[in-house]
């Protein structure tokens, strides 16, 4: 596309053209209206003058007959810049006046009339006049009129003014359109150049901004924010894949090493059996990690609508508490539950169950009080409605999570130092977070002083939000 073609194709330029046409039509209409008003004004004035003269002349005629009328007309005609006069007989023969010729039939129509005429001494009828014909008693006709030269001159002047101003309008409008289009085009070109750079891989680039706060600037700001977010997501993806690599490769390596070891050193069927059992255990663990990852991905893409139902969260809390009660007791942990009688909501019962189970499991696994502290091993589950929300809270009396680490532990595979050696996929909290988000809720970590307090907040009306 040529530079000019690009310019003419811009929205700004097209808009300028449209405005130009609209303004031209508007200006034309205004001038036409003014012209018509001026003409009407002229005509009115002439009419009034003519009427007054006719009245005067009719008076003369009434007082002194035709002779007096003719005299008066002759006298007036001789004055410079006089009106037009014509006195005729009933048959139309000219008696007095300065009008030599009129189109046929004009004299037959009394009243105000616009007509061509010729002055005495002229042969053709090049002038225009506005005249009134008056029938005098006795059959004489009297015509009094004014020449329209002035009016025609003004009309011509206005027409010329109209065309000149239209010309200027088109000229200035086009120039202005091109100017504005060029300005916008320059900025859009700069923006697309930056976008090209970004697309070719430099995600740190940002779109240029002028700081004027106009619409293009705001667009650039929004797009820059979007780029920021994309950058974050890319970084997150990078981290996740690094973590996946680590957390999946480690068990895979163990698996492989175990098999290699058995192949080299195993002597008896029992050795092989032991090795194979280890392989099964390791692969079970891997499958779990995969399932959790797939589930998180699935929840984050928001497609699990079929699993939605109306259910009682309090009952899920009771079930989970009961399910983990035995394990807790085995670990010497007191598990307590404090739940409202009924907490109905619409959502994924299994998902909420899984999320809560993960939280309780974490609390039992990692929530043991720091050695030497006087704290008892207690994990508290509570489920209650607070305003528009249902809160599922799991508290422990363990070491807790430092404030600066709280956002990080919700990420995939993040396991704090000291917990890496213990069993777990590092996906439990991520999964709970994904479940919360899918229900338009949130997962919060707080200090339980001492210990950790995890709150799974769910909108009580999640059902409406999901539908």
């Amino acid at each position, binding site marked *: 596309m040529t530079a000019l073609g690009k310019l003419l194709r811009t929205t700004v330029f097209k808009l300028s053209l449209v405005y130009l046409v609209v303004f031209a039509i508007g200006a034309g209409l205004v001038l036409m209206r003014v012209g018509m008003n001026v003409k009407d004004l002229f005509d009115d004035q002439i009419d009034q003058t003519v009427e007054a003269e006719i009245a005067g002349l009719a008076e003369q005629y009434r007082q002194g007959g035709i002779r007096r009328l003719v005299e008066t007309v002759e006298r007036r005609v001789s004055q410079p810049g006089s009106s037009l006069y014509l006195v005729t007989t009933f048959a139309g023969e000219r008696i007095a006046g300065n009008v030599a010729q009129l189109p046929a039939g004009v004299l037959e129509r009394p009243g105000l009339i616009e007509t061509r005429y010729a002055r005495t001494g002229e042969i053709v009828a090049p002038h225009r006049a506005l005249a009134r014909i008056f029938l005098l008693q006795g059959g004489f006709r009297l015509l009094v009129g004014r020449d329209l030269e002035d009016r025609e001159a003004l009309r011509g002047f206005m027409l010329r003014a109209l065309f000149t101003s239209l010309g200027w309008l088109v000229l200035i409008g086009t120039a202005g359109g091109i100017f504005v289009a060029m300005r916008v085009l320059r900025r859009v070109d700069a923006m697309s150049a930056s976008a090209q750079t970004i697309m070719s891989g430099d995600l740190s680039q940002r779109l240029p901004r002028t700081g004027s706060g106009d619409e293009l600037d705001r667009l650039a700001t929004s797009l820059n924010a979007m780029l920021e977010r994309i950058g974050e997501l890319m970084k997150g993806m990078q981290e996740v894949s690094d973590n996946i690599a680590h957390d999946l490769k480690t068990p895979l390596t163990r698996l492989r090493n175990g098999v290699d070891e058995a192949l080299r050193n195993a002597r008896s069927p029992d050795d092989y059996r032991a090795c194979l*059992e280890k392989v*099964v255990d390791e*692969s079970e663990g891997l*499958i*779990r990690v995969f*399932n*959790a990852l*797939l*589930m998180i991905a*699935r929840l984050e893409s928001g*497609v*699990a*609508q*079929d*699993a939605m139902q109306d259910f009682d969260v309090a009952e899920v809390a009771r*079930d989970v508490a*009961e*399910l*983990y009660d*035995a*394990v807790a*007791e*085995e670990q010497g942990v007191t598990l307590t539950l404090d739940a409202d009688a009924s907490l109905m909501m619409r959502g*994924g019962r*299994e*998902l909420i*169950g*899984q999320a809560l*189970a*993960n939280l309780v*499991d974490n609390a*039992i*696994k990692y929530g043991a009080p720091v050695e030497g502290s006087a704290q008892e091993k207690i994990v508290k589950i509570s489920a209650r409605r607070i305003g528009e929300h249902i809160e599922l809270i799991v508290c422990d009396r363990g070491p807790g999570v430092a404030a600066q680490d709280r956002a990080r532990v919700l990420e995939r595979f993040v396991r704090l130092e000291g917990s890496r050696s213990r069993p*777990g996929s590092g996906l*439990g909290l991520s999964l709970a977070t994904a479940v919360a988000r899918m229900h338009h809720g949130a997962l919060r970590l707080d200090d339980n002083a001492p210990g950790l307090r995890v709150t799974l907040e769910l909108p009580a009306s999640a059902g409406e939000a999901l539908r």
Partner: protein
Amino acid sequence: MAAMKILIIEDDREAAAYLVKAFREAGHQPDHAGDGLEGYGLASEGVYDVLIVDRMLPKLDGLSLIGGLREQKIETPVLILSALGQVDDRVKGLRAGGDDYLAKPYAFSELLARVEVLARRRGQASQEPTIYRVGDLELDRLGHKLTRAGKEIILQPREFRLLEYLMKHAGQVVTRTMLLENVWDYHFDPQTNVIDVHLSRLRAKIDKGHAAPLLHTIRGAGYMIRDSAR
């Protein structure tokens, strides 16, 4: 357990061959169909005890196949196998007329246990006995009473349901996930060996002080209640 006639509808030849071999070794009579239409034709005869249907099949997909059979009033129990192990897929599968759902990859012991339970459900009269007996253990379902060798044992409600499920399938392996699904009604991954702990509590209550244990752990598979004296 008596030999079952099983139809495996699975397009992956290797997986199917493995299943056929494994079921045969377990003492059953498996048949194999390689696509949805062939499977539908075989299943329509209604001679099988259980159908194992892969969700994604050439020519006719698994869910449509099940829908077609159910429309024909063929009520052979169906276990759906799927690579999609997600919550909503499970719901879809069961809604389409499947009786059980197992996500790939699975352990054969899990599949076998589930298939046997399904087949037995078909064989059984709809009338369940009100009293289950295994050895000298007696569970009265209506009276909510449990006795062993005539001596009453007090159980928590959930323990009672756990034992009831085990005794209903006495002599059959039940897996941990089957217990979580049927006794607790959840299908999620409990992360920890929660089920094992519940079972060891139950075992302490019913087997402690008795020479012949009734509740057995089946390594790599699950649990089984059975009278080992017989």
